């Protein structure tokens, strides 16, 4: 469906998108994840034709899009803050893409009704867009983008402006909807929860380059680099030298999964793999703080040597602040980073 070949976009001397190659298959939902300034929104603008490429090619259904103007690309784009047309009502917004393509009034009305049903706003066609809540605006924007039946739908921070509860509900709805319609989706977001819940495949970007690409599970389980690990919120990263099934670190000896490459590496220990026990066993740590996280408690530990550690403990086992504990590591929660 969509193929990007070595796409580069420069703003002055800086490359916002740096030789990025990416493919999105038919009916696939791909989510580009990255911090702000990583070039992910630029990527969408390139595909839409709003931003010319400085090098590389964009292909849709195998056809090179160079020289194809925005309005002939047949893609949909949902803007971050929706950009609904203020002077039109809901139906006028949703019908816009059909109208400029010359659809008859009857067709437009039927399609608008169908889409408003689909996004859960039946009968809202006559409402003014200024009177809509954030969630409703988001639904109208989605209906508007879907109405002309784009071959590729792009979403720029689709749920960025909504509050947390609504976001979590909508992301599930979106995934179900796209699955039912068979829509091909390229979304960008800085929110890992959103990306993992929405996507078939996640692409992590950093400074205009792709840092990692894989299914949500793959990326979550095996972050490819320290950057990806830290971006996903894992901060237990340390330098290590792997010898056999054990790595040497400032935290002492840490077991690694079987088959790990030997030699110097960066090591990630997921908080779930940090086990607390008797101070006599393992790395002596002082508990610096505790943060309640719902189903577990995140415990901040100050080891005798090396950087701060985070451990995830069941609620009833969590030690109090100032307690001294002994830390051991579980091999299956240890990841050797590239």
């Amino acid at each position, binding site marked *: 469906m969509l193929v990007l070949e070595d796409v580069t976009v420069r703003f002055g001397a800086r490359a916002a998108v740096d030789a990025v190659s990416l493919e999105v298959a038919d009916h696939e939902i791909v989510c580009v994840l990255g911090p702000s300034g990583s070039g992910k929104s630029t990527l969408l603008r390139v595909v839409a034709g709003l931003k010319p490429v400085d090098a590389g090619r964009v292909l849709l259904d195998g056809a090179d899009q*160079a020289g194809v103007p925005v*309005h002939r690309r047949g893609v949909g784009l949902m803007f971050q803050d929706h950009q609904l047309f203020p002077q039109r009502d809901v139906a006028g917004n949703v019908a*816009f893409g059909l109208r400029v393509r010359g659809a008859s009034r009857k067709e437009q009305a039927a399609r608008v009704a169908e889409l408003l049903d689909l996004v859960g706003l039946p009968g809202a066609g006559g409402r003014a867009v200024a009177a809509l809540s954030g969630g409703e605006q988001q639904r109208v924007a989605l209906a508007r983008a879907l109405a002309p039946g784009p071959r590729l739908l792009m979403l720029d921070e689709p749920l960025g402006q909504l509050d947390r509860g609504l976001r979590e509900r909508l992301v599930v709805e979106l995934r179900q909807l796209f699955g039912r319609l068979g829509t091909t989706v390229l979304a960008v977001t800085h929110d890992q929860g959103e990306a993992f819940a929405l996507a078939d495949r996640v692409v992590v970007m950093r400074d205009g380059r792709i840092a990692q690409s894989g299914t949500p599970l793959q990326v979550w389980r095996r972050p490819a680099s320290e950057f990806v690990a830290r971006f996903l919120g894992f901060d237990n990263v340390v330098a290590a030298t792997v010898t056999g099934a054990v790595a040497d670190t400032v935290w002492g000896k840490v077991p690694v999964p079987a088959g790990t490459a030997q030699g110097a590496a960066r090591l990630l220990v997921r908080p779930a793999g940090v086990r607390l026990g008797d101070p006599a066993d393992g790395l002596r740590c002082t508990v610096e703080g505790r943060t309640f996280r719902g189903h577990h408690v995140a415990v901040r530990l100050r080891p005798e040597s090396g950087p701060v550690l985070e451990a995830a403990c069941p609620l009833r086992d969590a030690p109090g602040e100032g307690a001294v504990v002994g830390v051991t590591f579980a091999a299956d929660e240890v990841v050797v980073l590239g």
Partner: protein
Amino acid sequence: MVLARPEVATRRRAALRAGALRAGLMALPVAFFAVFFALPVAAIVGRGLRTEDGAWQAGRLVDVLGRPDIAGVLWFTTWQALASTALTLLVALPGAYVLARFDFPGKALLRAVVTVPFVLPTVVVGTAFLALLGRGGLLDEMWGVRLDTTVWAVLLAHVFFNYAVVVRTVGGLWAQLDPRQEEAARVLGASRLGAWRRVTLPALAPAVAAAALMVFLFTYTSFGIVQILGGPAYRTLEAEIYRQTAQLLDLRAAAVLTLVQFAAVGAILAVHARTVRRRETALKLVDPRSTARRPRGPGQWALLGGVLLTVLLLLLLPLGVLVERSFDGGLGYYRALQHVDAGGGTFLVPPVEAIGNSLEYAAAATAIAVLVGGLAAAALTRRAGRLVRGFDALLMLPLGVSAVTVGFGFLITLDEPPLDLRSSWLLVPLAQALVGVPFVVRTMLPVLRAVDARLREAAAVLGASPWRVWREVDLPLVGRALAVAAGFAFAVSLGEFGATVFIARPDNPTLPVAVARLLGRPGELNYGQAMALSTILMVVCAVALLLLERIRADRSGEL
């Protein structure tokens, strides 16, 4: 890779297309200004500063500027503009505050009333103050006080004329400043005055400066008012250019003075552009409706009362007297307007025909100004570069360059094929449109720039071609501003005097020209007819403005 890569070529094509679009939009405005502004002005300057065989004579500049009468004119022009500006700020700033921050019954009416003077033709303003302050005027009758031919009449008329500029520019911004900023300062420990001085004043200062510069510009180039109220003793540059050109036939002096005015106006506009640019940045603005409230306490009610009294005495009284005087002999003066001979050989046609002429000319001028100004604004919206900013400033120049010079320049340049327009009726609307274009651009540009570029992108992604995007997104959003711009252009064209006085043909006078001609003749009947014709002109302009106020969104435009 040896061959040019295809995407490089496409990119170049896209850039070329964007450039071509901008060039296309700018072509007509640039051509218009070249032919109807640059050419006539250059011709006049050339006539004045070159000898018969075409050699430039820079020495003439020094000769003319060294003359004591010219030095006097320069000095008067500058100090009266400074004094007018200071006086206008003093009188109008309380008005700006009241209209921005207070909510009271009749506020919309008051806002409309204070704006009327700005679109009134200078000739009407001059006549109205003559009726108030002049020989046989209201003050003369009541207390024997006459202020015409004193500088006070000129200054007061300037305040009258520019009150709206300050109220609109400063008050418009003031109404949009978030009062919570001041509240934040108060909570942090600032006194009421301290909060105003540290938070509001700095935010307001650029707008005050911009308004002051506009007032300075308008009063520096003042013509009609000085011509009618200044008497022989007081002449601004513009009035002197007219005298040198039309009465003394000294083109040399006129050319030098045109250049001086050109340089001064250029400098003022450059400073203005800088202030405006500073103003556009970094202010958090809110909906003006959310910031006004009822006056509280005797102090605030007194302020409101003072402003209302000022408006009554300064703005409404002169106009009231004008109307009253025009009905002095019942409808006699109005009836006299229908006869050719009543003017004692002043006119070739009944003065009343000037109404029809004026309306026709102004309608044509409006169409031209909206077309040229609209295209220019559309071109200026697309990305700001150095070139575009220069073009922006260029569009403002007709506001300040001597209209008299332009008018006379029209006569001596547009008299040969292919552009032999001297006998064409189009000549007058063309000159008037020149003054209307800056208003159109000023009104349209902020609105066009405020259209979120991503709204256009959203339409394009949904399949709308560039032309369709303009029609579907831009036009509905700026339609209102377009109507306002047209109204401004119409009012300005209707009142244009400096250029029209040269090129309007004796058998086709416009209203301002007819008024001036009547005032120039002795006799009660002529004076009364001038009052009557001025009243008609005022009513036409006021009606145009009130229609405008109805469609005007509060935030469209800078003026």
